[in-house]
């Protein structure tokens, strides 16, 4: 059973946004119910005039204060847990965040595969999506051209999205073939890139 069939996990809050995407910061590890999204995962910024659906196209972790780089700590071969044990102050000073590219928005109770009229507000909560929302987004993948603009990261995220959408569908193989056929039309002018994406989607070559 898919774990996201239940209550969707909370991932963070929007820290900056445009209509074509947003960045968000994740809550700290010890915040109850908070998690970090996976690369290529479908997420939803729930606050604002309309829920905004977006695909995670990057996940980053590093110092909260960009003027204070993390110093090298721990000798070669020392396990990470031991390094954390010796330097417990480091973890609270780190932040994890993610970037997401808009793939649709909700209006009148339906999910539309187009850009919203306005970006989600800063500090809007971001949660994971249900399998049903994932299926709705993938029903008509007209968001692909926007993802293509983000280059390699967009292609990799799209491949992950397709794999997940197929895996949660009642007919995984059929859904995989359908999605690849519809998405492939957008890559008609760049067969090399399309072949790369296909290998990412389906290393076994079924599609």
């Amino acid at each position, binding site marked *: 059973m898919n774990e996201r069939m239940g209550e969707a996990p909370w991932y963070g809050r929007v820290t900056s946004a445009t209509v074509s995407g947003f960045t968000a910061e994740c809550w700290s590890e010890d915040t109850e119910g908070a998690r970090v999204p996976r690369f290529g995962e479908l997420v939803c910024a729930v606050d604002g005039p309309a829920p905004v659906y977006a695909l995670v196209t990057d996940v980053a972790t590093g110092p909260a204060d960009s003027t204070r780089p993390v110093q090298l700590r721990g000798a070669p071969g020392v396990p990470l847990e031991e390094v954390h044990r010796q*330097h417990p102050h*480091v973890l609270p000073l780190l932040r994890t965040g993610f970037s997401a590219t808009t793939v649709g928005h909700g209006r009148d109770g339906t999910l539309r595969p187009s850009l919203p009229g306005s970006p989600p507000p800063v500090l809007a909560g971001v949660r994971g999506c249900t399998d049903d929302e994932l299926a709705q987004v993938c029903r008509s993948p007209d968001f692909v051209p926007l993802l293509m603009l983000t280059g390699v990261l967009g292609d990799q995220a799209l491949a992950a999205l397709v794999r997940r959408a197929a895996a949660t569908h009642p007919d995984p193989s059929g859904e995989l073939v359908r999605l690849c056929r519809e998405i492939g039309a957008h890559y008609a002018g760049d067969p090399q890139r399309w072949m790369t994406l296909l290998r990412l989607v389906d290393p076994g070559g079924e599609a």
Partner: protein
Amino acid sequence: MTLDLEQIAAHLPALRERQAEAARERQARLQAALAQATGPLAEPGALVARIGEPRTSWSWAQPLDRLDARCRSTAPPARYTVVATDGSHVAPDRHASLAYYVVNVGRVRLHYGVEPSATLDSVAVLEDREDALMVRSSADASAEERVSGALLGGLRAVRELQAVADLAEAEPGDWPVVGLLDGTLVPWALAPLVSGTGREEVRRMLIDEGVVQALDRLRAVAARRQVVVASYISNPNASEVVHALRLASCPLLDRGSPTEGVAWCERCPRGGPAGGRDCDRVGAEPDARPFRRLLAPGERSGVFLRRNVSRDAVEALVERAGHPVGFAYCNVGPEVARLEFPLWALQSGGAADLLHAVVQDQATQGAGYPVALQEAHEQAVITAHDRGALDGLLERTVGAALGWGDVGAKRRSKLRRAV
């Protein structure tokens, strides 16, 4: 660039020669000071016996151990907590529409051992009340002190010490706790503000209900678990130990009447603006210089007491309240640091070793400066950006509602920075 470096450059050849000569002289003084510190005067009691009761304006150090004592740091305990605080403030600005000050205290709790953890936060307080911005004497209606400058700095230092007491009191478990502060343990610079008539309110606020009460609380915690509190002074500029060596080398000590063998600076045979005093021979100030040579990395000195402290000095007030302050030097590797602590903190078995072990480990982690203090500073610091955001917040939420008048012309010109 408004500074014409060419004008400065013209002075550099002479400066270089002067500095080279000064370096040679400093080296000779250091050698003489080291020879004195490691000779017969190093024996316990010998230095004080030699100096007696000098008549000098210098503060000087009374060693409680051998003058040249060297103690090696041990490993920290298997499980312990370091709590540290540091502060910063926004002083009242007479050009602003609202008179207020902000004190921000950064707090750090680092727990080491089986279940390591860290808590880093800050506590900010904004005061705009009249009685918080001005301290008035109850004895003299005309005696009042605006809370800014040294007084605000002292208030901040008190809040830092109180925050260490808060953290020590809140610490669970029964493992050792080391409390660290940055700078001097008690704010010596407050002396002019807390002495004399009309100052009793400031004295009550900062000393009796401030430093003393916080140290009382820490001592109460130390009565039920191992707690050591100390302040850490990086690149210390104090010279009490060197002053003691100077006094011990005073030629007046070896004479009979009229001075009866007393080091008496007003009767210095070679005193005066031209310099050349006999004691300059061992004048290797500051203390950190000889201790840099005496102590190997990872070693600490013995404990010293500061002597010849004015009766009205903050230190004397705190001592009379039961908290005499001692100090020691530690070679943490990149530098010699000074630790100041209430003497009671070192009276329990192993307390000095615990403090030294933790300070050395913290400094090693922090590339020469204790990592807990580094992080407390980072939590406390108020940047120019923060200050601008605070001004904007006050203007939007209070100023707009109350229709504050325009800010002063000088402040306005600084904000615009237009050509």
